[in-house]
């Protein structure tokens, strides 16, 4: 269980986090979404006890995040947003060191994760690519099978195949009743794993709702390329066009997709693509500026 009450850390110039309050119950996976610099990592640093001087309160399993970190760390697996390893070791040595520091004697799950993410940890960390380091950080966060997982942009640097493996791993842990708090700036990543999304912007929480609810409200964007200009013009009468480039029209779909398909069946279409809304755009749509 993770609880924050009125968490505030003011770095000046409107930077920091302001009155961040949320509560995450035992067996849920919650996404923490926000653009770069919104305050995701700062909030997470409070939970991990890295920040000691702040207003408000933060608790993990009813333990105070400021004072009880030693006890809290027995339950938590943490994946930092910026991976900065002790680089004079190789991957295996680092895993062994952290395992010993965590009091983990059985490395079989760590080895399973290494295989799963196809990571050869015998090479020196200095020579590892960003993706390899990210995988190593994933192994370290999950290796003691913690009750609570705090993951700060966990898929950063991973290729799509590995991103999928990570999603599967998160879903597995979710199924086993773990509490997962996952920050991201990718709506898609969070959508695949989380039941609930907390959105943060300029240091303040702007929305806290279930994924289903957000999906319902989400506006989908499509780019449709027509063959005939007359048909493009005709189509434009029925939908709100947000962008036009020759015969290519971009629309915001608020209607059902089925109705769009039926409408398009009346015309000759060259191509249709779904355009992902960036998180910024979602913010703009939902909450304005």
């Amino acid at each position, binding site marked *: 269980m993770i609880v924050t009450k009125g968490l505030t850390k003011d770095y000046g110039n409107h930077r920091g986090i302001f009155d961040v309050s949320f509560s995450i119950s035992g067996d849920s996976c919650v996404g923490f979404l926000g653009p770069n610099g919104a305050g995701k990592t700062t909030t997470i*640093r409070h939970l*991990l*006890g*890295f*920040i*000691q*001087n702040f207003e408000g309160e933060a608790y993990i399993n009813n333990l105070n995040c400021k004072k009880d*970190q*030693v*006890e809290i*760390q*027995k339950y*938590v697996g*943490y994946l*930092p947003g*910026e991976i*900065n*390893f*002790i*680089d*004079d*070791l190789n991957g295996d*040595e*680092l895993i062994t*060191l*952290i395992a*010993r*520091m*965590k*009091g983990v004697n059985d490395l079989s799950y760590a080895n399973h994760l290494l295989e799963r993410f196809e990571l050869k940890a015998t090479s020196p960390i200095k020579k590892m690519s960003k993706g390899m380091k990210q995988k190593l950080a994933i192994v*370290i966060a999950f290796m003691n099978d913690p009750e609570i997982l705090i993951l700060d942009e966990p898929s950063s640097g991973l290729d799509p195949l590995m991103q999928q493996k990570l999603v599967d791993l998160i879903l597995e842990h979710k199924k086993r009743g773990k509490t997962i708090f996952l920050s991201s700036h990718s709506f898609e990543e969070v959508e695949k794993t989380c039941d609930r999304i907390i959105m943060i912007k300029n240091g303040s929480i702007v929305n806290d709702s279930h994924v289903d609810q957000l999906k319902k409200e989400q506006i989908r964007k499509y780019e449709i390329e027509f063959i005939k200009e007359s048909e493009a013009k005709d189509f434009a009468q029925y939908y709100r066009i947000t962008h036009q480039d020759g015969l290519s029209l971009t629309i915001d779909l608020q209607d059902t997709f089925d109705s769009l398909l039926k409408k398009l069946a009346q015309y000759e279409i060259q191509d249709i693509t779904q355009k992902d809304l960036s998180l910024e755009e979602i913010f703009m749509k939902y909450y304005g500026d």
Partner: protein
Amino acid sequence: MVIDMINMALYKKEMKSNLMVFLIFLGLSMLYGIIVTELFDPAIENQSWIEMLRDIYPEMLDFVGFNIGNLTNYQYFISGYLYGMLFIIFGLIFANILSNRLLFRYIDRGSIAFLLATPNSRTKIISTQIKVLGTYLSMMALSMYLIVSVFGEIFNPSYVDFGKLLYLNISFFLLLCFISAIMALCHSLLDGKIAVGSSIGIPVFFFFLKLISNLGEQYEFVSYFTPFSLFDPILCVNYDGLSFVYNGILIVLTAILYGLTIYGFNKRDLSV
């Protein structure tokens, strides 16, 4: 208690990771240590080269602590030529490199996050790092002791007083601990260039004050403003009572500075 707070896995890792730095400094100390011990010659008639230097550059010899009263005493000779400047500079640089590697690098790069994301308190983590630093400084002082005593005995049998040299090196170790405490304080509580600059700048500044205070009576007052005055090799090799007082002060100051380091590190925000 802070004294017995240690994470053995981390301690072993750090001892291994910093061994190469120690070996390099050990090599340097051996090289210079052996040359200087070999230079000692108790026969007065063979010391004309030093007399010549004294005549030409009296201030320079004073400045670097080479102006020694009694050149026929091995302990005095070593005190001036090795513990006056050379070994202090080696110790200072060695302590700074270690403090940088053990404290600053972790905090600055953010890799401390991985250590703190384990069920070990900040106090335990930083105490472990400080203990690695202390272990290496004691190994350095012990090595220096072995170099000056063993090679002294080889080149000049019967001139070496093992007990006095041991006491000299224990005092030297206490000085190194104090210097390292200044560095640890800067490295763990300050950020970026300020941390790096002050950790080396403050001890070097104090050391220069010590060198200036060597220049003669009119500059002697400067010695009151530098903690390096608390290590006086000549007092040590004479078992002078004052050297025991100095060592006591060094121990107290070191404990205070390390206490502040641990306290400050516990209270600070870490952007990692």
